[in-house]
């Protein structure tokens, strides 16, 4: 009887490294894909609105209305365009040139000074609800400031809310999306690349040859995990550098805590890919399965785009099964908040449990196949 031997595990790893570094497809996936995805998502996934065209019709032409419009145009958010009639304003929104139309009624100035509540009508293009929400938020911010100023000149003192955003004071959406992209890239790369490796050996018939030697299933699985883990760590570092230097992201957590969480997550998702490979045994089907299993929950149930807390209870439970949901929390936290390991213990333990289960499935299923 022979037992588990590191030397055989390293022999498998070494061979796998040769495969990886001689295959342009794998290398491209590992290095070019993350860069491409980060840059594309970094620029395309823009929730912030800048330089939005807004039409206005000012029938008051007073000091107050002018100061309101001036505040808007100086905010960088809006580019104002004067129209001559309400019809023209509506047309500009319809034709998609302007995202909103602001109508300042006559006597606006007079009314607010005499403390009669006065309304400015704002029509926002609601086709893109996310953009509409952002525009509204900016407008409210500007008008709030305005009313504070107006009232501080008058007798009435008011106590409006003074709010400040923590962790991401400018609500920069890149700060939110790039750590998320990092998680998505890791999840996809892990499952996709490893899903091919065991299936490749079955398909080419080399598995039989491996098995005619005393190599053990665990040695094959571990031997195949190491190179892909290394590959993924390299792409994590690449994305990290890009995020910090190119997109100016802060990193407020501990690199050690983050790396530790990365390893737990990697182990789980690499094992997921291997399990797919072990079960399906064919490269093409394994790759398709990995795309679906790796991509869908990662994009939809991880909180990457849609907050898990807003989902119906059933979906929240479903999301909790996937380690990616927990890793998303840890990654965003480490970049923006910087909580300690103790504060993050729940997501890290949840992720760890899921990863252990996935590794076990891969090894047990593989062993069962061979006996």
């Amino acid at each position, binding site marked *: 009887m022979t037992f588990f031997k590191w030397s*055989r595990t390293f022999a498998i790893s070494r061979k796998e490294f*040769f495969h990886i570094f001689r295959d342009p497809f794998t290398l491209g996936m590992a290095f070019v894909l993350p860069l491409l995805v980060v840059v594309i998502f970094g620029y395309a996934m823009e929730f912030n609105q800048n330089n939005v065209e807004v039409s206005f019709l000012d029938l008051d032409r007073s000091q107050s209305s002018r100061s309101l419009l001036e505040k808007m145009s100086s905010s960088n958010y809006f580019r104002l365009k004067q129209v001559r009639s309400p019809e023209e304003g509506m047309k500009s929104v319809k034709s998609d040139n302007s995202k909103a139309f602001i109508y300042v009624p006559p006597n606006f100035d007079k009314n607010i000074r005499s403390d009669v509540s006065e309304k400015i009508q704002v029509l926002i293009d609601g086709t893109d609800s996310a953009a509409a929400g952002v525009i509204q938020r900016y407008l409210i911010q500007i008008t709030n400031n305005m009313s504070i100023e107006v009232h501080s000149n008058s007798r009435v003192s008011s106590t409006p809310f003074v709010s400040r955003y923590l962790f991401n004071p400018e609500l920069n959406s890149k700060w939110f999306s790039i750590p998320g992209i990092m998680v998505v890239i890791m999840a996809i790369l892990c499952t996709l690349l490893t899903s091919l490796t065991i299936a490749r050996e079955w398909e080419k018939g080399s598995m039989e040859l491996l098995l005619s030697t005393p190599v053990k299933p665990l040695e094959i699985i571990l031997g195949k995990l190491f190179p892909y883990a290394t590959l993924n760590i390299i792409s994590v570092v690449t994305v990290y550098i890009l995020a910090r230097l190119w997109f100016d992201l802060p990193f407020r957590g501990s690199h050690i805590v983050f790396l530790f969480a990365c390893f737990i997550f990697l182990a789980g998702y690499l094992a997921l890919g291997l399990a797919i490979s072990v079960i399906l045994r064919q490269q093409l089907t394994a790759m398709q399965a990995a795309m679906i299993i790796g991509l869908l929950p990662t994009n939809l149930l991880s909180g990457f785009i849609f907050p898990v807390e807003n989902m119906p209870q059933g979906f929240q439970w479903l999301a909790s099964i996937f380690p990616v949901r927990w890793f998303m929390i840890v990654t965003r936290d480490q970049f923006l908040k910087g909580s300690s390991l103790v504060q993050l213990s729940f997501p890290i333990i949840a992720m760890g449990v899921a990863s252990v289960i996935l590794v076990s499935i891969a090894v047990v299923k593989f062993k069962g196949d061979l006996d």
Partner: protein
Amino acid sequence: MSSDANKAVLVSHLLVQFGEFKAVNDISFSVDKGEIFGFLGANGAGKTTSIRVICGLLKPTAGEVSVGGEVFKGNGDNLKKKVGYMSQKFTLYDDLTVAENLEFTASLRKLDQDYFEERKKYLLDFIQFEYSEKSFVRDLSGGIKQQVALVASLLHDPEVIFLDEPTAGVTPVSRALFWSLIQKLADHGKTVFVTSHYMDEVEHCHRIALMRGGEIIALDTPKGLKSSQFPYGIYQLTAKAEDITDIEKALQRSSEVESFQPHGIHYHLAPKKDNSWEKISPLILPRFTAKKIRPSLEDVFIKLVEGKNR
């Protein structure tokens, strides 16, 4: 017969069952040291399953298997040291060099570095390898690949080598070369276990086992198989006219005819008894030209494995 100590492979009452299905049903045979042993049978006959057991890959349901004096036990690891395995399905990793492939196999078998270098040099000389060890396997021809794969399976100096259709898909010249290597191995005292679909190749085997339905239905030397299956020879018949349907039926039904089978553009007829040919030749000669030939292994194979009149 030689004593058990000279047996490279001993199989007795081997049974392999998958659920209800008996893939291998109580087979027994032995192979001598230095013997080239052919293993034939149609797909699904139990050939591959038997080989997997003898290589230590599959646990037998019942029966005993020993290779080079080692009895199958545990997970079969003790047999894996004694056997080398090479399959037509996979030879070597294309994107690795010759040296890397050999190193990989050596490290899976945990060979000592010095021993490995020595074996590698010896075996590459043995196959008269004349390329660089640093050449990528994908740049080698099919025949050379096959030979290097043979080297890989011989690195740990196994007593028995299993060649599962080793020459499928290589040129006839490469096949001949490969068989001369197999011959040389046997001369060095290695036992070679071969499966193949090329009947002309199988003629090189010292003995042949034929499997059908999980059982060994014949086991003999090629010569012995031919003479036991066709004791009165075979006549190659060539039809003089196109339509021979009537006589074809008559011959197939005749009690003097063992078998009458189409064979390419000819027909092969095996007489049943010593004097059968004299009795039926007046019926045949007006319609066919006839020539007595020596039966080939293909005739044996067709009769035993694929033949319907058995």
